[in-house]
């Protein structure tokens, strides 16, 4: 279980800012989130993932209830 937060286009398609999602590692959490919000399947491949606000590249990293998983679409600042 982790708290998944959606930003920008990811928030727009899910119409959700954050939600608790089950899963023992990042990959499972993302898969379960996509099952809950099928429209995420188009968005997720473009996103970078943060685990507890740090870039996460190893999706086999274990997560617990107090962990944050953020979905970040491509940036467009400036």
């Amino acid at each position, binding site marked *: 279980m982790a708290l998944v937060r959606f930003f920008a*286009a990811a928030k727009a398609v899910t119409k959700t800012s954050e939600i608790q999602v089950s899963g023992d590692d990042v990959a499972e959490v993302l898969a379960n989130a996509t099952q809950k919000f099928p429209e995420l399947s188009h968005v997720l491949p473009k996103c970078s993932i943060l685990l507890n606000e740090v870039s996460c590249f190893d999706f086999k990293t274990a997560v617990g209830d107090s962990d944050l998983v953020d979905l970040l679409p491509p940036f*467009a*600042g400036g």
Partner: protein
Amino acid sequence: MAKVVKALVTLDVINPSDYQKLVSGNDSGAVVLFSGDVRDHHDGKQVKSLTYEAHPTAQSVLADVANQICQKHDVNQVALAHRHGEIPIGQCAFVVAVAASHREAAFAACGELVDEAKRQIPIWKHQIFIDGTEEWVNFA
């Protein structure tokens, strides 16, 4: 060693000349200031309104990027800010000010800092056009 005197992500109005003043000093012969302002057009379409969304880490990333650039260039002081929320057309969304002894370093550092910040800071831009369409920029 160059100093990042300000790195801010804010909902408030940004006044670029405040940042120019923050970095100026008697040891600096050159200040280069970049102001990224909200345009009334994008790819040929008229923009009606524009909103930036910022991730909670945006400000610390902005400071990190500024420190990276300071280590690469012979500059004296750097100040920068990015606004989020809805920003009216014509107002400043992003400001970068760099002061250096010599203009070459000031220009190089300011240009690079703008490029790197755009690449690295977790901020998103949502545009609504006059024709009723809308988009998240860079998200086709």
